[in-house]
């Protein structure tokens, strides 16, 4: 099982790495065929990634959501999926795909550096809320990260409109906002499910531990984004810069506070 998992994982890494190279050539050198090949490579990498997750799930007997390795494995899976849905909805968004694949690669790389030992699920994690909480966390953070890639692409596109005549910056901007709205729903489910789960486990639904506090900070940041966008009409570059800033908060929440604090998952 471990051999199969390892092989599938490295196949996924190879697929994403090659896809990154091909998609980058497609985007920056204007080689359309390479871009299409890159997309197929990313799809193959994602299929191998899915296999690695399935094998891990079967081998450990639980959803791969415990520890840095499993969380990176699962979290990175959502990024190409969201990217695929996005490109399917608006084909010119494929030019942002190298960065989407790069995020998946970085996340996987982060996981590969952590121990991958098979461990049973620890007592606090033996709850139906676990999968809901973690899956929606990754869905939300994946959406936010892909939205920030689109925001960056929008900024680039706005300055080099002639470089990609098929892509409309305004559409890219709106797709970014849609992804943020989608991620915000996931973020809300993540926070709500975590709070209700925490009450059953620790007798309180909120304890202001660093991760809880920063989850709320990132939720509030995106709530501000959505209000500025949909109520006050912020669009274009202003909204894109705001989306990039909000993504920085997500990165701090997950990879800054999450790495230095273990209070959030206190055990027996």
């Amino acid at each position, binding site marked *: 099982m471990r051999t199969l998992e390892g092989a599938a994982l490295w196949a996924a890494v190879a697929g994403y790495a090659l896809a990154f190279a091909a998609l980058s050539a497609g985007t920056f050198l204007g080689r359309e065929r390479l871009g299409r090949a890159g997309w197929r490579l990313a799809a193959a990498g994602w299929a191998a990634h899915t296999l690695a997750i399935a094998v891990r799930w079967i081998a450990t007997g639980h959803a791969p959501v415990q520890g840095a390795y499993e969380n990176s494995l699962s979290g990175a899976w959502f990024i190409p999926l969201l990217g695929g849905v996005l490109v399917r909805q*608006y084909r010119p968004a494929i030019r942002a795909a190298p960065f989407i694949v790069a995020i998946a690669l970085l996340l996987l790389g982060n996981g590969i550096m952590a121990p991958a030992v098979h*461990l*049973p*699920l*620890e*007592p*606090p994690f*033996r*709850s139906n809320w676990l999968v809901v909480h973690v899956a929606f966390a990754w869905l939300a953070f994946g959406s936010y990260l892909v939205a920030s890639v689109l925001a960056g692409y929008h900024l680039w596109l706005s300055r080099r409109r002639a470089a990609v005549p098929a892509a*409309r910056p*305004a*559409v890219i*901007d*709106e*797709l970014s*906002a*849609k992804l943020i*709205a*989608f991620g*915000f*729903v996931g973020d*809300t*489910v993540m926070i*709500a499910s975590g*709070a*209700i789960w925490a*009450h*059953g*486990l*620790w*007798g*309180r*639904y*909120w*304890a*202001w531990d*660093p991760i809880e*506090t*920063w989850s*709320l*900070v990132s939720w*509030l*940041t995106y*709530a*501000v984004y959505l*209000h500025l966008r*949909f109520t006050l009409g912020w669009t274009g570059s202003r909204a894109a810069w705001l989306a990039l800033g909000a993504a920085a*908060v997500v990165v701090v929440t997950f990879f800054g*506070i999450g790495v230095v604090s273990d209070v959030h998952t206190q*055990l*027996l």
Partner: protein
Amino acid sequence: MSATAVLLALASFAPDPGEPRFEELRRRAPARAWILERLEPRRFTTSPAFLALPGYIALSVAASMWQRASARLRTRRAPPEIERFAVRRTMTLGEAPGPAAERVRDAVRSAGFPRASAAGGELHGRRGALGFLGSMAFHAGLLATMVGIGLSAVGRFSGEVVLTEGFPVRLGPATVRAATPPDGAARLGGTTVAIRSVSVEFAPEVRQALPDSRTGMVDVSAVLDAERDGASPGRFFLSVNAPASLDGHQLSIHRYGFAPEIRATDPEGRVRTDAVAVLQVIPPGAEDAVALDGGGELRLRFYPDWAPRGAEPASRSPLPVRPVLAWRWMQGGREVASGLVPRGGAAEAGGYRIAFPSLRYWLELLVSRDPGLPWFTLGALLGVGGLALRFGWHEQSWRATLRPDGAGTRLELVLSARYFPALLEERAERVARALGGRAA
């Protein structure tokens, strides 16, 4: 909201005032320590200065909901409106108005617009009520959550009670420790609880490989018996993620450990303790102290699965397979005797005798009562459902006017949406491509 987010972000970096380095800071820089102490998240988020912000947000949300609901009610009988962003297309289709209308319906529907209704020579569709209701539900959920948080801040009770297998405990201020608020445990009076059948399970594949760690533990469970004055006795199954609900309080397993029964006799034959000792299991091999009657203490280390590594005492696994107690008798601050005693045995050194007749488990249960939880849960449900409706069914409408034009049909199409004008343009182009008409 921005101010709240920034203040929370700052507060998260404030050190815990209980930490030793904070004491050091208090000595070195009292003014800085004073500020940081007030920024500590738990304290900061219950301060009136901070609570004013969510209070202001709640008022603003309530006012906004009222304004929007009133506006909605005023316009509910008005004919379907074109939304904020609109795209107009006029074209001539090759077929007669009847078949053309069918094609328009299909093309508009496949571009994600609402289903068509017909009125006179016009087709139209509208979606929006759910989006509006979703927004209202989300904001109502936000208010309910804030009410819940407020009720929790005012009325939440939490405490801890340690129960040893086979020893009933009457819940109340005397037995519930770390009670917050201190008088909250009085409401528990009149209930006696006891635990039995405590089980600590480890995954079989790792319990041998990782003996000195909690890694590999998969569950802690027990049966809780409760007797209430004037009520029938209750029995509850407890495990880490399965708390018991008793008289409006939740009892959840927080920690566990071993509780060896110990009888200590000094060289004069006086029994200095005859009780169960509550020993820690984390960190493994931690030394615990038990006070002795008449002064002195017994220091104990517990090895659940005795398997010494050379001269070093050690445990092979965390399971109580061959339990052994290492003891040191301290008198006047110095060790006067020491030894090892297995379960069911006794050991003597220098006239000091320790007997270890039986072994039990102890559990520390968190006792909590939170009047804000139902409101918080309601708020969460409304919030999630409301958001899904808001973003899944945002306001859109369209109108198509079809008039005979020679052998064909002249189509005037208006597509509109509350949000996303550029995507609306894209969809309008898809509709136009699907209809394939000649632009007029």
